[in-house]
């Protein structure tokens, strides 16, 4: 029963998200997206699935065969295992652990492991670089993720996800700790290797990243089910931690929970269509120099408030967190605007290079007149 539910959720995410992603991208890019197979192109994921399943299952000759076959299975364990502690309704949780938050952090390690092994075993430089990038990125962004998990545990006074949802009866934690929610969102997008942090599978430099050598059904397992299953599970976790879990009017608990998870997934797809990709050094600098100090500060202040006012710490925490969020968004927007529009470099004054170049080219761009005799 439990296994059937988890598998159904993962397969459904493998069908729902790729379709909605392509439709949304089409909407953002003023294109059509898939609209030929079935009404509104709704049968497109199934057509893709049939195509992938009927393809030949190739293992590269020089690959380390057993590790190559084992890696997708290890990676696939994460989305299945995490669902075990998610409360679907007031009464239904597959396993109500009293260390649920720690369990989530622990189990997500298997995802990193599967990706690293997949990258190494294919004996291909693109997959190796992709796998190592994914590993370094996921380890770095796991730290702010864990620090926000500690904040949730402190607010709920428990590490069980059931208690976390019960504690959100009056007010959701996104209202009390928007800063933690934003850190969780950003670090989660990085954990899932999605744009703007999708360097492990940067197609313009690494072909397909760690999944380059996988084809047919194994590619479907990796790119379709594991990645999108992870997105869904991350959405379920976010909904449980910050958005009140299964709470909501009119509809039943599981429907509310899945609805919130799908909305979080659509936010990720929206990011996908909006942001450009970061560089590796920017990615690491953002994790270690910005995200981790902010999470430690947020954690320390929240802990201080809980010690200072043990009875009513929610209001000061909320005031601090909202202030920090506004400051963070303001500074971040200012800096990004400065970098992108080149105000710091005085780019808006001279027109001898384009705004997207970020840096003045060593030689002036040849105009039409200078080229040729």
């Amino acid at each position, binding site marked *: 029963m439990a296994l059937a539910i988890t598998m159904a959720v993962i397969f459904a995410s493998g069908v729902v998200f790729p379709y909605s992603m392509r439709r949304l991208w089409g909407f953002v890019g003023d294109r059509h997206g898939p609209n030929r197979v079935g009404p509104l192109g709704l049968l497109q994921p199934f057509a893709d699935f049939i195509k992938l399943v009927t393809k030949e299952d190739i293992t590269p000759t020089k690959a380390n065969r057993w590790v190559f076959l084992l890696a997708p299975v290890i990676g696939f364990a994460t989305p299945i295992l995490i669902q075990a502690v998610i409360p679907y309704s007031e009464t239904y949780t597959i396993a109500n652990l009293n260390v649920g938050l*720690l369990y989530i952090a*622990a189990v997500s*390690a298997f995802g*990193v492991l599967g990706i*690293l*092994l997949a*990258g190494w075993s294919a004996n291909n430089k693109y997959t190796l670089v992709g796998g190592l990038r994914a590993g370094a990125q996921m380890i770095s962004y796991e730290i702010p993720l864990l620090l926000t998990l500690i904040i949730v545990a402190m607010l709920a006074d428990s590490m069980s996800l059931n208690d976390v949802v019960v504690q959100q009866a009056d007010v959701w934690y996104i209202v009390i700790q928007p800063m933690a929610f934003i850190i969780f969102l950003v670090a989660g997008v990085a954990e899932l290797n999605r744009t703007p942090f999708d360097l492990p599978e940067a197609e313009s430099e690494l072909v397909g990243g760690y999944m380059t050598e996988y084809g047919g059904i194994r590619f479907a397992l990796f790119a379709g089910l594991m990645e999108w299953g992870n997105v869904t599970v991350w959405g379920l976790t976010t909904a449980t931690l910050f958005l009140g879990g299964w709470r909501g009017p009119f509809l039943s608990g599981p429907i509310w929970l899945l609805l919130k998870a799908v909305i979080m997934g659509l936010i990720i797809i929206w990011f996908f269509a909006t942001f450009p990709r970061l560089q590796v050094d920017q990615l690491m600098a953002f994790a270690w120099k910005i995200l981790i100090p902010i999470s430690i500060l947020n954690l320390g202040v929240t802990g201080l408030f809980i010690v200072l006012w043990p009875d009513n710490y929610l209001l000061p925490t909320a005031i601090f967190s909202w202030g920090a969020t506004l400051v963070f968004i303001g500074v971040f927007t200012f800096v990004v605007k400065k970098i992108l529009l080149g105000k710091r470099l005085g780019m808006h004054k001279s027109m001898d290079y384009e705004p997207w170049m970020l840096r003045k080219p060593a030689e002036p761009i040849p105009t039409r007149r200078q080229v040729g005799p």
Partner: protein
Amino acid sequence: MGEFNQLAFWIIAFTVISCAIGVVTFKNLIHSAISMVCCFTGVAGVYVLLRAELAAAAQVLIYVGAISILILFAIMLTRHRSGDLKIFFHRQSWAAIPLMLLVGIVFTGVLASAHYMNSSSEAMNPDTRGIADILFNDYAFPFEVLSLVLLVAIVGAVLLASKEKQL
């Protein structure tokens, strides 16, 4: 439930021991590392059977999530081919035998002299709050000293690595 626990324990014990043998006998370093991950996960399974969920989660978080991935990283960054990676420290295997004997004697002594609690007693099923109480109130000083030792080790490792680079 008792019979299921017995069966699960024997399956996990068999897996852990065969994986531990695999760690030292596999010729390929990556295969050894995967075998080690399996071994660590199995030990976490034993903790779950003993109803020590916190220890199990910490075991997976630290040993699978941090240590094994660090080892894999080190192997992949230093020898970036997936061909046959031979274990290179086989010449030291003679030193392992006396060490093994010593460790075996110590462990047997500790296990033989240990005072076993009844599984229904209160102390057998500690919750997270109780462990935190012990860790941060009663044993706060040793805990801090331990973290200081780890910090010293990290700083020393960075120093050693940077010196090697300068030479």
